[in-house]
């Protein structure tokens, strides 16, 4: 857009602090790409952002059907935000099914942009509409913009050698162009992306360019939009930023850990949603010495990782809940042989196959207790997409220093959601790592470091330290097979004490807000944003509410009980039926209350806010 054009429309530009847009369409309509492009553009522009991709597990469910609807919500703001927004300000619905499944979230007065061309009788039938929503008055509460997107887009692409179907596939960029115009975004990042992606296919590149620009020009020339909106850049802490999803940050964190520890990373994995993207990304880092291994199954993936760690590499594996079930016996082996290992669980809705693309945080008790016998493993859980980097490094710090398998709990919301990440300088990253044991005179396979209780890491190839390890119980110090009753008791106790002792080596639990008061909202994992936003609203209302968020789930930070006891009530919102709640009640005999929502979606801020108000009023929450 030229400067002149901006001036012409100047009187119609309104500044907003925050906008939430949801793109919704058929899973073949490219909604994820559209949302990602808007996100990148807004991130580079300097807004704070938070995203929520929401897509079906079916790659291409029947076109136009309700289960085939794919959505992408993003919130961008000139102030700090923690969530992708409870409800959209703008809904872009590319077909009737998308309208039907998403309209319920659009508040009255919200803007609704629909692709008029897709509202054919056939599509209305597929979506189960008995009357035409664009004409029956049911959309009256909304600010509706009916645009014949398919027709306009096809016109813009006239003359290109493409099939009608190919032309239709670019209509999402027409819609994106409209939104770029409406929110004063530059088209440049997306134009660059088109060049990178389709450079080798000039016709496709030209088609996408034309679609985007035509949409933008439509916004500029049409009379239907009376106002443009501008969301100024946010005042983020100084530094260099990039837009990042949780899975991307996780992969980078593991590469960083490998660099910091000076050992090659071995990543064994079996494809599973929503963890596979970590494998895809790491497989591109071969020049960092990263060895990726797509195993024949989940068990082979973890087995190979343990084998790699046995050899002195940083062996790790990743999966989601169903895969963790399969890995659990091998995880127990890693506990017994006390080798470093990181197991990533990108949680999704279960049980069993559940809802593979939907989020949940219900594997906490599984990773803590889902193995035979007492089988202690440290557990860390990042709270935001950007934090995934930090806790990937932290997981490896613990695994190496304490010679132990560690679970890293992410979830579908963190994995696919994005936010700006302040990129750290390599020099500012923590020091992690451990030396191999090489001295024959002081070597016993199960002798322990007096501080950490870690056993020595003696890798094959070290002369004079030939020894045998395995899943049978070990004699303390010598590591020989032992069935001695007292030895078994001692070893069980030692393994537990080693993991419990990590509490002395992790930061205290921080409280956001006053350190004592009426109510503490305690969370873990991806509920961070919704809890933080709700607590800030309540604090602004003058209520005595604080927020604490656990990143270490085993062991808990040393001051956890002290923090909890400084409040009259403790509310624990979780996307499960009360797992941290069970731990807190069982561990500390604190009468905490839970807020459980398992809908495959993140909490809304208002849900937590309402629950907190009720708890403060002494009401029971259902």
């Amino acid at each position, binding site marked *: 857009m030229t400067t002149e054009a901006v001036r012409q429309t100047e009187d119609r530009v309104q500044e907003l602090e925050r906008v939430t847009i949801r793109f919704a369409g058929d899973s073949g309509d490219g909604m994820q790409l559209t949302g990602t492009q808007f996100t990148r553009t807004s991130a580079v*522009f300097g807004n704070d952002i938070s995203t929520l991709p929401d897509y079906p597990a079916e790659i291409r469910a029947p076109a136009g059907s309700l289960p085939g609807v794919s959505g992408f919500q993003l919130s961008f703001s000139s102030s700090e935000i923690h969530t992708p927004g409870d409800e959209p300000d703008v809904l872009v619905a590319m077909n009737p099914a998308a309208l039907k499944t998403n309209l319920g979230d659009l508040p009255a007065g919200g803007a609704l942009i629909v692709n008029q061309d897709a509202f054919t009788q056939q599509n209305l039938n597929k979506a189960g509409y008995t009357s035409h929503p664009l004409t029956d008055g049911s959309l009256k509460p909304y600010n509706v913009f009916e645009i014949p997107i398919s027709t306009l887009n096809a016109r813009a692409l006239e003359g290109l050698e493409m099939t009608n179907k190919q032309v239709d596939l670019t209509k999402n960029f027409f819609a994106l162009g409209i939104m770029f115009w409406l929110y004063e975004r530059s088209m440049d990042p997306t134009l660059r992306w088109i060049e990178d992606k389709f450079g080798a296919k000039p016709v496709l590149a030209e088609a996408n360019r034309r679609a985007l620009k035509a949409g933008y020009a439509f916004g500029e020339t049409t009379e239907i939009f009376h106002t443009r909106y501008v969301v100024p850049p946010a005042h983020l802490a100084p530094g260099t930023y990039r837009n990042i999803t949780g899975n991307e940050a996780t992969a980078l964190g593991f590469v960083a850990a490998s660099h910091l520890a000076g050992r090659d990373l071995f990543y064994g994995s079996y494809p599973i949603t929503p963890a596979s993207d970590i494998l895809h990304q790491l497989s591109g880092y071969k020049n960092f*010495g990263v060895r990726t291994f797509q195993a024949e199954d989940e068990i082979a993936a973890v087995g*190979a990782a343990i*084998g790699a760690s046995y*050899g002195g590499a940083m062996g790790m594996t990743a999966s989601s809940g169903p895969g963790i079930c399969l890995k659990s*016996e091998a995880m127990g082996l890693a506990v017994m042989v006390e080798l470093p290992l990181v197991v990533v669980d990108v949680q999704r809705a279960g049980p069993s196959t559940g809802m593979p693309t939907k989020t949940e945080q219900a594997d906490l008790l599984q990773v803590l207790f889902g193995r035979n016998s007492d089988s202690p493993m440290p557990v860390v859980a990042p709270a935001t997409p950007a934090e995934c980097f930090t806790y990937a490094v932290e997981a490896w710090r613990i695994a190496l220093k304490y010679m132990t398998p560690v679970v890293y709990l992410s979830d579908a919301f963190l994995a696919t959601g994005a936010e700006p990440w302040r990129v750290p300088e390599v020099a500012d990253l923590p020091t992690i790592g451990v030396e191999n044991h090489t001295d024959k005179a002081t070597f016993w396979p199960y002798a322990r470091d007096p501080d950490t209780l870690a056993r020595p890491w003696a890798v*094959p190839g070290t002369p004079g330290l030939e020894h045998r390890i395995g*899943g049978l119980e070990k004699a303390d110090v010598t590591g020989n097979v032992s069935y001695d009753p007292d030895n078994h008791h001692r070893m069980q106790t030692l393994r537990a004490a080693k993991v419990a002792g990590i509490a002395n080596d992790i930061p205290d639990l921080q409280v956001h807000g006053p350190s004592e008061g009426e109510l503490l909202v305690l969370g873990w994992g991806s509920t961070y944003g919704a809890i933080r936003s709700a607590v800030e609203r309540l604090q602004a209302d003058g209520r005595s509410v604080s927020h604490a968020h656990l990143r270490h789930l085993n062991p808990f930070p040393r001051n956890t009980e002290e923090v909890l006891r400084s409040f009259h009530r403790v509310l624990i919102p979780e996307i499960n039926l009360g797992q941290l709640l069970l731990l807190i009640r069982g561990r500390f005999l604190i009468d905490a209350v839970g807020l459980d929502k398992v809908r495959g979606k993140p909490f809304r801020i208002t849900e937590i806010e309402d629950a907190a108000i009720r708890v403060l009023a002494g009401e029971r929450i259902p």
Partner: protein
Amino acid sequence: MTDATATLPSPPTSTKLTRKDFVSDQEVRWCPGCGDYSILAQTQKVMPDFGYPKENIVFISGIGCSGRLPYYMNTYGFHTIHGRAPTLATGLKAARPDLMVWVITGDGDALSIGGNHVLHSMRRNVDIRMVMFNNRIYGLTKGQASPTSELGKRTKSTPAGTIDHPVMPLSFALAAEATMVARSVDTHTDHLQATLERAGRHKGSAFIEVLQNCNIFNDGAWRDFTDREVREDRTLVLRHGEPMIFGKDRDKGIRLSGMRPEVVQLGGDIKEEDLLVHDEQAEDPTLAYLLSRMWWPDFPVPVGVLRAVQRPTHDELLQGQIDDAVRRDGKGDLGELLFAGETWTANEA
């Protein structure tokens, strides 16, 4: 096809070790009379021949009586979980191509709970030597049917006889694209030693079936053709490039009749030239597969190397991709990686 018989990487050491160097201080705890003793002894005997320092040799096992072998080898050893030894070996070899890795397993460990991992470690040509002790029974759990138990076998878990058709281990290994497939017998000590020696010198995935006697739960499982008095008439000792002749008097042979092998009596019209000639290096696995199906009493049971071919190993290919990436993109720079992509800068507010 390259020569599969002389492929050992150049020995990293010249220090000559002896059998004793490979005996650990642990007391051996198999049942007296178990065939495992012989396999252990032959394994310890051949170890010095490979020229590897013993700290560069690793024995990895699963669960079962065979799983105890690593404790008795004075090398690095890892007694893992049921069926999964090949997975640990795969990861170890990927991380440490410099090590010589042996996998010790049994018929239940390898073909029942661990079947999938045998399949995939073999087809990937992971550079491991997998020695499968086959006694056609679950010994450590005290006598249940195994995947190699003969149809109708009565065991504690199959009092009316097993109804599960047995698997032929070597047919399976061949179908899984193992680059070396061989069979030997616990009591044929010279042959077993020679076979382990060959496995040790093979580069790539070697699958060695050792017919082993469990004198407690399945005594005499192989007796019909392995006993000293009958073995020459009832086994076929395979020799690369030689016609398939067997018998105490070396008067019987294997001839191809259409697509089927047949046993023929030499002399008269039938001469050595009419017999099948063993070719363990044949690109096409048909001959090896045909041998893997031959079984007593219809045929002598083949022992020795059925197949030994060369293919790039998993660790070579993996390392090759890493080397290519470093050549193409340079050694990875973490700072560049973190700051890659579209970045923007926020200044002091």
